[in-house]
Structure formats: C-alpha cells, structure tokens
C-alpha cells in the first residue's frame, strides 16, 4: 500500500518547488473562491439593476464599471466565472470518465480489441466535434447538462490514448504479472494497481483539459449558443463586450475586464498543468 504513495509525495514535493506553478495555483484558488463567494461578499447584488448608473466606466465603487442595465461588472464577472469554471470542471470529469474507461478497456485487453478501439479513436481525431456540439446545442435547447455532456464528449480522445498507453505499460509490469498468476481477480488488480498509477497522468491531462473545455464553452456562449441569460459566463460577457465596441462610446471595460480574468484563469490552469506534468514526469524537458 505504501508503495503507491511514495511517487505521489515526491510529485507534490516537486510541484511545490515549482514557483511559477505554485503562484498559478494560488491565483486559481483565489479566483475560484471569489467566484463562489461573490454572492455573499459583494456590496452589489448580482442582479441588482440601476438604470441610472448604467454603462459607467470603472470607478472606486465599481472597479470594473457597470453594464447595460447598471449591474456591477466586477460582481457579474466573478459570478460568471462560476459557470465557466463549473462547466470546465464537470465537462472535464465527463471526458475523464469516458476516456479512462475506453483506454482502460483497450489497454487491458490488448490485441485486436485494443487495435479496433484505438483505430476508432484515430478515426474520430480529425472530426470537428465542436460543430456537432453547435448543432446539438442550437437545436436541442441550451440546458447546462447538455453542455456538460456534449463538451465532455468532445475531449475524451486524448485521455483515452494516455490511459491506454499507461495501462499497457502497467499490464506488463512484474507485480501485475505476479498478481495475475496467483489468481487475483481482474477488477481487484485494476482498482488496486492500475488505477492508482493512472491518477498521475490523468490528473495532468485533466488540468490541461479544463482550459480547453472552458474555451469551448466560451466559444459557444460567445456565439449565443451556450449559457443563456440570466446566467452569464465569461464567454457570454465577452460577447456583450465585443458587441459594444464602437467609435462613439466604446465601453472598453466590458471586454477588457472579463477577457483579462478569463485569460488569467486559463494561464494559471496551464501553468498548474505544466507544473503537474513536470512533477509527475520530470523527464520532460522544457
């Protein structure tokens, strides 16, 4: 049991020494906590309209300015972060579940099943899944659950490849061969030996999938297909911001602030993901 813990402690120690990754982690946690807590902490209500104060530039009272109906943009941006992060995490989870299952089955069985399954993955690799998601969301309604599932289903391919490779490797490891030879049932082997070893790579791929999914959700919301009002996400806020740019009265804060917060979050996620990858597999050169 303790054997499978050591690599973990090592990995996390390595991560902790990576200053950039730690800083990014801190930023990420700060943003997430703000996004969750904003409802209770902000002096402005999330839906509090004040038509007289609409479209104001950033000020002390409204550091991000106000939107078209007078809502505080900082509050709204943080609140929007909730949805973006939620979709990112849940859809990633969906993709992990599908990818792990697929890769596990392929890698464990090997031979023709593996061949067939991975050939299928190869085939799907080139498809513009996102366009199917566009159609799906446009025509079957824009529920959040649909978004989770659809976006998650787009991303599982990479995960399955990584999991399959790892599973293949582990399958041939000595302790596994030993366990099989003494008749340990397959599910037990999978749970006790294979899965723990997968967690590392899966964690890395998950952390790097979240920003991809968030970008996709923002893409959909930007086009008006993803999150619907009154819910807002960073993508839909960016859409409002982009639509407002004009020479007479460009409300630049509508695009700059939500855009910046989104970008910073993506940056942080990328750093943390890279950090995790380095931590678990220091052979990769940078």
């Amino acid at each position: 049991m303790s054997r499978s813990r050591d690599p973990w402690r090592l990995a996390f120690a390595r991560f902790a020494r990576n200053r950039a990754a730690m800083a990014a982690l801190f930023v990420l946690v700060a943003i997430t906590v703000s996004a969750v807590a904003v409802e209770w902490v902000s002096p402005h209500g999330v839906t509090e309209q004040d038509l007289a104060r609409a479209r104001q530039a950033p000020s002390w009272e409204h550091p991000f300015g106000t939107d078209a109906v007078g809502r505080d943009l900082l509050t709204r941006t943080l609140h929007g972060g909730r949805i973006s992060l939620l979709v990112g995490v849940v859809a990633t989870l969906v993709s992990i579940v599908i990818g792990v299952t697929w890769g596990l089955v392929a890698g464990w069985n090997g031979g023709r099943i593996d061949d067939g399954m991975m050939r299928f993955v190869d085939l799907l690799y080139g498809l513009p899944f996102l366009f199917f998601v566009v159609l799906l969301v446009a025509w079957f309604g824009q529920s959040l659950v649909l978004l989770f599932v659809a976006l998650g289903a787009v991303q599982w391919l990479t995960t399955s490849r990584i999991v399959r490779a790892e599973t293949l490797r582990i399958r041939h490891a000595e302790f596994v061969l030993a366990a099989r030879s003494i008749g340990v049932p397959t599910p037990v082997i999978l749970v006790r030996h294979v899965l723990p070893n997968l967690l590392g790579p899966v964690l890395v791929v998950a952390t790097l999938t979240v920003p991809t999914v968030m970008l996709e959700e923002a893409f959909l919301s930007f086009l008006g297909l993803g999150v619907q009002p009154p819910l807002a996400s960073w993508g839909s806020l960016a859409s409002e911001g982009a639509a407002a740019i004009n020479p007479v009265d460009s409300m630049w804060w509508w695009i700059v602030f939500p855009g910046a917060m989104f970008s910073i979050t993506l940056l942080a996620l990328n750093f943390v993901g890279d950090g995790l990858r380095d931590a678990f597999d220091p052979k990769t050169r940078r």
Partner: protein
Amino acid sequence: MSIPAPPEPSATTMPSMHRILVPILALLAAVGCSADERPADFRFLNTEPETIDPGRVGGQAGGRIVANLFEGLTVRVPPSLAPGPGIATDWWTSDDGLTWTFRLRSSTWSDGTPLTARDFVWSWRRVLDPRTASKSAQLLFPVRGARKFNAGVSDDLGLFAPDDTTLVVELETPTPYLADLAAAPPLAPSPRHVVEKVGETWTRPEWIVSNGPYVLDDWRLQDRMRLQRNPRYWNVEAIALDVVEAVAGDFANANFNRYESGLIDWVDSGGVPPALVDALKRRPDWHSGPFLATYFLRCNVERPPLDDERVRRALSYALDAEAITTHVTRAGQVPARGLVPPGVPGHDGIDAPLFDVERAHSLLAAAGYPGGEGFPSLTLLFNTSEWHRQIAEVLQQQWREHLGIEIELLNQEWKVFTTTVRARDYDLARGSWIGDVLDAQNFLEIFTTGNGNNRTGWSSARYDALIASASRTRDPERRAALLRECERMVVLDDAIILPVYVYSVTNLYDDTQWAGLEPDLLNSLDLRRVRPVRTGVSR
C-alpha cells in the same frame, strides 16, 4: 387558365459543368472583386433577404428590395403613404365594393417585353398557388375563391384581364384598403416569361428581369446586392441614383461602425446599437418616427389565474410603459396606447390611460389576491435577445413593486419560442405585430377565433361578429367605430394583450447630403425619391 408547375426545386438547373466552374469563378471573383467596379452612388443597410421573388417574398428585408426592383399597381406615396398611381393610372370600385377595376399604363419589363394586366393576374395567382408555397398568400385571401385556390381544391379565382390594360378584381368581402394592399411587395408583378423558363433561380443577376426603377446587377450573399438604374422604367427620368448597393449585416454594432467610417450611407435600427441610443439621439443624423408595429405581451387566457380578466387588467394597469420607453428602449419608441399604432389612416385609437396603479390594486384584490398575497408564480416567456431580456427584467421589477407579485423569466431560442407560443404552452409571452397594410383591421383581426396569430386561447363570438361587420361595412365612419370597439375589447375590457410600446423607425443618415429619406410608418426606402443634395447642380 392554369399555370404549369414550376420546374423541380431540388437541384439547380445549371448543367454539371457549371458546378465546377462556379466555385472557381467565385474564387477569382472574391480575389479580384471590387477592383474594377464603379463605386455605388448610395449604400444602405438591409438584412440579407430570404428571397426577392415577389411570388414568395414575406419579410421587410426582401420587401425593401422588391419594392425597388418591381413596381406594383400602386405605390405608397410618402409621407402619409397613401396609395398613388404605380403601373395603374387609376382605379375604381363597384357600388357594392366587391369589384375593383384598375386601368394600367403601357409599360415594359427591363428586357423590353411588354407588361400587361395578364402579368398581374398570373403573378397574383402564383402567390396563391399552393405549389409556390408563398408565406404571403394570406394577403390575397380577400380575393374571391382565394382560400380554396390556395388549398388546391378549386381553380376559380376572381382575377381577370379583359384586355392588356385593364385588371378586374372580384372580392369576397369589401376590402377598403385594397389600393394600399396593391402596393405591397408580394403583389408586385413577376415576369412570367423568365420564371417559366428558368425556374427557382430566376432572381439571380444573370436571369432577373424587373419592371421597377432598378435591376439587380450583382448579388453576393450576406455581403451586398448591387442595383442598377433600369433604363426601361416608365418613370426613369425621376430617378437620381444610378448605382445603389444594399449592404447586408447582422450585427448592430458592426453595422454602425461601418456607417461611421463612411462605408454605408443609411442605416435603420439594424445599425443602431441599443447601448448608443442616448448618444446618437442628439446627433443631427438621427431621424426617427413611429413604425407600424406594436410590442405587447400575450396572455394565455386558458391558464389560471390569467383566465380571470381582472388579473389580466391588473397586470396591464400596473405596467408602466413610459418607464420602459424612457429608460430601457430610449430610441424614440412611444408607449403603446392600444394595439394599433398611431398614424394608421382612419383610426383614432382608444386613447385611454393604461398605467393606473390604484386601479391595478383594486382589480387584483377583487380577483382574490389583495396586495399580491397568494398569487401564484407566473412565467414571462421571451425569445433570446438582450433587448427583450432588459424589458422583461424591468417588467418583472414593476410588477413586484406595484402589485407585490413575483414573475419568473424564461427565454428560448427563436424557433423554439415560436413553437411554444403556438402550442400555447406559456403564461405570458412577448409578442409583436407588424402591419402588412395601413389599416387597423390588419392588427385587430388576428384575435378572431381560430386565427393562427391569435395564440392566446381567447375567443369571443361578439368580437368575431364585430370584425366581420367591419369587413362588410362601406361607411368609413361606422367601420372606424366598429374597429375602435374591437380595440377596446382586446386591450381594456378583456386585456388579452398588454401593450408596451409602438416600435419606432430609427434611421441614421446625413440629411445635408441626402434628400428623400424621411422615415415613414413602414420604414420603406423608396429609392425613387432619394437624391443627393447638391446646391446648384441638377442631374
């Protein structure tokens, strides 16, 4: 006289060689596109139309193009938009009002073929022909036999051309607004000789033939349509602009930006971003006026508590339309004082105060919900749009404040929204009506029993009778009184709709540069009247 079926709509009628050439040519065209083209004299914003075939046209975007490419029997003369001579020089009705006769001038199509009354008969039949599947067929239902013809069960239609220059129209009921209707784009003539030869693609630049002030020179989808002065137009001397472009664009902000940088000369509300309305209102290039359309909420009268008209009236009286037009829409919209917009000839409207909080309170209390207590939660449905959402949020706020009730908001994508409303699966739904003709009946008749645009579940035999009487009355005063009574029923007594505001026409253009663009009730853009303002220089 029956029309042979139009050629199969499934594939293009071009031979297969063209299928390869077209993409290559398109590529070359895209690359060398505006290189040697003469710049247009005037460019205006116009959403990409669905079609510019008069036999099938249905929306405003298509209508604007059709109105400038084709000319019907009559034309709507600004500023009042009263019907004036077009292809028809004059017209008269029989004593019982059931037969109209139009006398036509002699004129030709842009390819020289003579235009006769038979063209009008053929074109109007085509609109009603079930195989054309025109969305505007309903406009011609007053014609005798039209409904049956459109259903495909009869071939008999009250349209005749005794000779080349006379058109006779027989009607089911007297239709006082027929002269105005004759100016509507779907009633413009289509060139039979081209349509029958080419089929569905006849409106392309390489085939199209028209009879109006302009012909279509070039068409790039979602980009622009280029119109060229028609030298064979009967009134060609009156046209000032040689080449005009209709520029397509879907986004108000982008369109406005192009207007500001001088790429477009005239925009309508499609080029006025709501956020900028306040700043733009004060500019000299801002021009606005009322539009023939009303924004209202439909009540589903089959759903409690909305089945109680006191509840509906309470909601109506607690609705402060002025606050909405002043603070939310702010672009010159006028709070609606009824269903029919002001300015419709022959209609005075009900002119009753529609915002009265006291009355709202007492009505709600009388219905059993004093102060809003115990009032169930209702949902206000609207189609996805920032504009509608802002209005919905304000309404929610108003009812919360004035009546103490909670309304939930729900938005759906356009197609889903229309399906839901049609299925009457809503409590309150956002709605609107744009008039087809300048007549109050066009607005009021949609609430007769069984009318597809009713969608409230409301049905009143008395209302139906009133409308029927109004259709048959020849005396304009009595007719006006009947229609006023109808409006009272729909808005005040039964409150099946809650009027919010009358749409406004908002246009941006430089009036020191262009004349003839004054906004009218239909927001038409009559290129015949548009001319550059040049002191001392005449064209």
